[in-house]
């Protein structure tokens, strides 16, 4: 059983993600939060119960605290710094990709535009088992697969 956190301010996107995840073979539990501030509260306060997530899907454009700020905080907090972070954004702006990778993002994916593609993308990302080997996927691995 893998625990997954999703931080996204768009309710529709959260729903798409949830539906796609349900149809995947991998056994998972999903916790969703509405923005970066909520994510940090959940991560810091509930670190032991429930246990830390296996992977965090992180949107970039969010109110209160954006994805970049969250990523920075996670990587600077000793208890959290090893949690894999997958950037999950609409934008494929090169600067954003460079910045998040330099801050230690494990993967950058563009939000797919169909249910099928989303399912496939999540499946592929999870199959990389970031939680076992702390690795960074090539910057454009999923950008091109999607477009």
């Amino acid at each position, binding site marked *: 059983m893998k625990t997954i956190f999703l931080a996204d301010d*768009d309710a529709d996107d959260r729903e798409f993600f949830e539906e796609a995840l349900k149809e995947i073979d991998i056994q998972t539990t999903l916790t969703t939060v509405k923005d970066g501030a909520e994510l940090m509260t959940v991560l810091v306060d509930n670190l032991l119960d429930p246990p830390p997530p296996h992977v965090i899907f992180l949107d970039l454009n969010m109110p209160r605290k954006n994805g970049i700020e969250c990523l920075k905080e996670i990587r600077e907090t000793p208890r959290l710094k090893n949690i894999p972070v997958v950037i999950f*954004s609409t*934008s494929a702006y*090169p600067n954003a990709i460079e910045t998040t990778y330099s801050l230690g993002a494990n993967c950058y994916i563009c939000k797919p*535009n*169909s*249910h*099928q593609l989303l399912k496939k993308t999540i499946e592929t990302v999870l199959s990389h088992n970031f939680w076992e080997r702390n690795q960074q996927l090539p910057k454009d691995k999923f950008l091109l697969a999607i*477009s």
Partner: protein
Amino acid sequence: MIKKEKHTRIKIVFLIAIIALMLLSLFSYLRIRNLIDESVLVNHTQKIKLELNKTLSILQEVESNQRGYIFTKDSVFLPPVDSARIILTFHLDNIARLTNDNQSQVQNALQLRTVVFKRLDYLQKMLNDAKISNLSTQRFLTGRKLMSEVGNQIREMEKEEDKLLQRRTSSMNKSASLTPLLTILLIIGSILILVSSYIKIIKELRISDLLKLNIESTKNELELTNKELAFQNKEKEKRAAELIIANKELIIQNEEKEKRAAELIIANYARSLIEASLDPLVTISASGKILDVNEASIKVTGVPRESLIDTDFSDYFTEPQKAQEGYRQVFKKGFVADYPLTIRHKNGNQTDVLYNASVYKDDQGNVLGVFAAARDVTEQKWAKDLRIANKELAFQNEEKEKRAAELIIANKELVFQNEEKEKRATELILANKELESFTYISSHDLQEPLRQIQNFSSRILANEQKSMTEKAIVYFEKINNAANRMQVLIADLLAYSRTTFAERKFEIIDLRIIAEQVKSEFEEVIEVKNAKIEISEMCLTNVIPFQMRQLLHNLLGNALKFSNPDIPPHIKITSSIITFVQAPNISLNPEKEYCHISITDNGIGFEPQYKDRIFEVFQRLHDKQKISGTGIGLAIVKKIVENHNGFITATSQLNEGATFDVYIPNN
């Protein structure tokens, strides 16, 4: 200095010791004085006491006799009152004298005198009465009372005297009690001072002894050295005298040499002047033979010095007889002036000259030969022409200055224009930044709603198909297609603007790596279309890596997209460094190296007249329903090539494949 200081210190020490000893004597003297004073005082008190006792005892004796007489009436007991009065007066006087230093005691003494005589008078009266009759007890009581008054007075005075003595001696003792302690301290102090000064003096004496010894030995050494020096001095004086003589000798030799040198310099100087002269100079003997020539003569004749000397002077002129006539005149007249002749150079050149010559003589006045100087007059002829040419040049110069002034004005104008352009450039940079932020907005904010449309329409098509009519399904598919096209359009526009605004960092990159990466991006299409892609002869070159990648991506993408549906695509990618190529419509710099990238496919191609149009934005040659695309891909390619200062050409015939050639300067 040090010695003096030491002496003063010793003096001070002794002075302190003397002062201490004097203080000691003073204290002792004071102590003795004190003791004497004390004993005098004690003595004084004892004397007073004695006098007082005597007074009392005399009075008592008189009284006891009186009692005896009253009881017995025997005249034996008749007391000598009168003599007792005299003795008492004597004693009382003594008391008064002794106590006159104390006011209260003086009063007491007077009181005592009064009481004593009162008692004595009463005693006399009782005796007189006793002779007549018996005396009453009352009279005896009065007598006793008077007697006790006397006793009281005496005791009073004794007490007073004791008190005085005690007061005086106690004050003396107080001052005297410190004396022994001070004395001891002073003695110890003096001893310490004396001992330390003794040690000090002994040390000083030792040091001065040592110094004396040192001085003695140094003195001896100095005497020896002095003698040695005196000896050396004498030796040196001797040597100096010798040197002075040698010096005089040298000075004389020197003067001789200087004279000789001066003569040589003059001779040299004269010779140099002769040699430096541009006029040909020559000396001729009486027989007309050349004796000596200068460098100019050699030049003008073209004959070396050795060959000139001892030959006939007249041989080197176009008219030898005129020359002979010339030097004969000199011997005759002593000189000639401006005698025209023409010198003939060995190679045939002729030089017009004017000769000035005079004879030269020895000390006795005998003529030795002729000294002749030739002035080249060809130059003078030239000078006239030159003056005219100069004027022309001056005129041209003025013209040029005028032109320069005009150029300066033009330059200022250009500087001004330049500034304007810089301003414009700054404005453009700002505008570019704004565009860049617009690019970011379009990359995110435009895509977000679009993606939602795509998502929802795809969900509807997937899940709600059963409850929809055929028409509704078709419409939703159209919505989906339109949204997808718009997504591609946004992505392409972004890529296009990025090639314009993004930072341009050149790096030396192996093109094969980029080509292989791009190829792998198309894996799926390649598989589906069963395409064959050949990458060969790739080279290293200096490019903007991400742009070069985009270029190859677009070109390869096009080659795959515009393939012939009946034949599997076969695409060849090559690159090489070339120096010069003959290609239509492009003009490569023949001095530069270029990287030539070529992509050839076997696809549907295009009609040759479109070879330029295809690179324009939004230009499509095909129906978008048949072949997808936005018409931006090749515009991006063109832009990237321009960013690299290169050229691109497209060659094709319809249905016969196409070739794209890219030329990028290889820096």
